[in-house]
């Protein structure tokens, strides 16, 4: 369905990534946010607090990220599309509730504007060091979707995608910015509402007597009940059966948890987004994401001008990881170069999928600034030899 015009600021704007995320959320139909300030993400909710009273909805600043990350889920069950934003230390605090969202299949969006870590780290400077945490940070087996924009325009577009995927797959979806993408100002084009596709909440059409709140459809995702309509839904973080009732038997655990993984992994074809360029005939492919992909592009251009056959693979969906694509590329090239603003996170996935078919080289960085293109170029040249 089309976006609600109330939330769409159609036009050509000059916005930074944080602000563009907020506009994306509003365009996607988000009408509730519970936030807690943390650099460099705060601007997202500051703008939301500013905009939402004239769009129609609620912003509340909660007392901490523990509250923010669960208040938004209460709002989701109350009927709203809802999100929160944070950075490393706050993200760590949100982990229990990310698991709760996964277990209760609550559609919601978390925006993480990554900064230097660990701990308080570098509050105002970039890193990409939460990439494994977003996948594995909460306890237990569960699957998430994580998207990596590399420009303010993508912050707008992918935030809408995040909300749509959250509704479609009933899971928490993450938009993984970094401080540079969050604070860089670029042109952002916001189309008219009838050109923005928005996924409606998959409310059930069955009456209360027939509806089972956690009975999956063919796509492995259950429909949602409306609260306040007599469905008497029970939502719990305990392992539960199709009625939502707690059930401690291993057979129920097996069925439920496997489905939570399958509903993402089996639908990966629709979820995995990426950008490729000149993969055919390449000797080396550079695999990158977020702000690093912008620097990597410069390094790729420099290498190509020296006659190296370099391809580009830009990860847009980091989770579920583009396993098929990387495995296929690894079979055709000499080496994969993985620059990232951390000391080795997504490179592990690349190595796993390459399965030894190609050399995999990390161009790591502890964080605090972006790579120099020359650092990436040097490794490209080394492996191309």
């Amino acid at each position, binding site marked *: 369905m089309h976006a609600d015009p109330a939330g769409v600021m159609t036009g050509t704007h000059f916005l930074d990534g944080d602000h563009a995320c907020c506009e994306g959320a509003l365009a996607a139909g988000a009408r509730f946010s519970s936030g807690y300030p943390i650099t460099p993400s705060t601007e997202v909710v500051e703008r939301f607090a500013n905009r939402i*009273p004239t769009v129609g909805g609620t912003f509340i600043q909660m007392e901490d990220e523990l509250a923010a990350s669960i208040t938004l889920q209460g709002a989701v*069950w*109350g009927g709203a599309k809802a999100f929160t934003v944070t950075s490393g230390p706050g993200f760590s605090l949100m982990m229990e509730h990310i698991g709760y969202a996964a277990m209760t299949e609550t559609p919601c969006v978390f925006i993480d504007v990554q900064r230097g870590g660990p701990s308080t780290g570098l509050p105002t400077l970039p890193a990409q060091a939460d990439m494994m945490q977003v996948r594995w940070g909460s306890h237990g087996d569960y699957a998430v979707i994580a998207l990596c924009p590399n420009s303010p325009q993508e912050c707008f577009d992918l935030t809408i995608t995040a909300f749509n995927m959250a509704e479609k797959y009933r899971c928490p979806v993450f938009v993984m910015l970094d401080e540079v993408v969050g604070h860089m100002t670029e042109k952002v084009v916001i189309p008219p509402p009838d050109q923005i596709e928005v996924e409606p909440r998959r409310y059930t059409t069955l009456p209360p007597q027939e509806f089972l709140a956690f009975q999956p459809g063919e796509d492995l995702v259950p429909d949602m009940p409306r*609260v306040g309509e007599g469905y008497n839904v029970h939502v719990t973080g305990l392992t539960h059966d199709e009625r939502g009732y707690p059930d401690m038997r291993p057979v129920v655990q097996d069925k439920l948890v496997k489905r939570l993984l399958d509903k993402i992994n089996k639908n990966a074809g629709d979820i995995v987004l990426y950008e490729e360029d000149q993969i055919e005939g390449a000797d080396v492919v550079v695999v990158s994401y977020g702000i690093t992909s912008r620097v990597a592009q410069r390094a790729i251009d420099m290498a190509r001008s020296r006659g190296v056959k370099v391809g580009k693979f830009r990860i847009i969906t980091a989770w579920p990881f583009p396993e098929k694509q990387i495995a296929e590329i690894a079979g055709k090239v000499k080496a994969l170069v993985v620059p990232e603003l951390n000391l080795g996170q997504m490179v592990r996935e690349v190595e796993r999928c390459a399965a030894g078919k190609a050399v995999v080289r990390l161009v790591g960085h502890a964080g605090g600034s972006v790579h120099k293109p020359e650092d990436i170029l040097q490794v490209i040249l080394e492996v191309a030899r």
Partner: protein
Amino acid sequence: MSEATVQLPTNPVEQFLRMDRIPHIWCPGCGIGTSVNSFAHALIDAKIDVKNTAIVSGIGCTGRVAGYTNLDSFHTTHGRAIPFATGLKLANPKLNVVVYSGDGDLFAIGGNHLIHAARRNVDIKVICINNLIYAMTGGQTAPTTPGSVITSTNPYGTYDPAFNLPYLVEAAGAVYVARWTAFHVRQLARAMQEMFAKKGFSFIEVLSPCPTLYQRRNKMGDGLDTMKFYKQVSKVRNGAPTSEVALSRSGEIVVGKFVDRERADYGGLMHDTLADALGDEYVETECCTCQ
């Protein structure tokens, strides 16, 4: 064989229970089930719109109440029932939102959220079953456990001073504060009924036996002994200053309605401020529902 069947009346409480999940997990002599009877009767007597009533629990023995009540029910994470309830209420203000949870869940891990919700005067109704212990996990010390009792984490006796819950909640800003015990079934039902009609952050503490852990480890008898103890030492003092209602190991239990005042609720404050600032541009929504 006669076709006429004897029409047996049903327990009016059962309409609010998920009967397919009864019997429940609570121990013999536990007061949680007793409080649920009062809750059910309060829902009936208040003539509350049950469809628009939602219950939110945390983790613990009392946290299991959400699973047994036949309402839109949410069994959330430890200590976070109140922020979840806040989100539910703000997104859909026509819901009656009740938080039903235990003393450990609401006042230890959840303490921060409780005081902020009271400060904001969020329109939610909090029923706190206080059994003076962390029961579900096997009887550890809670912030309400009196001094000089044995718990599993204070095997030589507790020495943590305990919270005075009504005092704390009043200071944080609650507009309705009462305490009853599981013995006071009718007064409790009436207090809950009163609370449902109140606008703003409302709180009832309900003292309950935990015969399996608290009472047994301290040789205080069983659930019935504790209920008789409540009957014996409770004193109804409506309007008592909350600073004077602290509990001790075997001292007087002051019960009654302590606070009943008026304060603008959070939804109202938010609305008024935004309407003042934005005038016609302010878009009020009945609730934030998406399609």
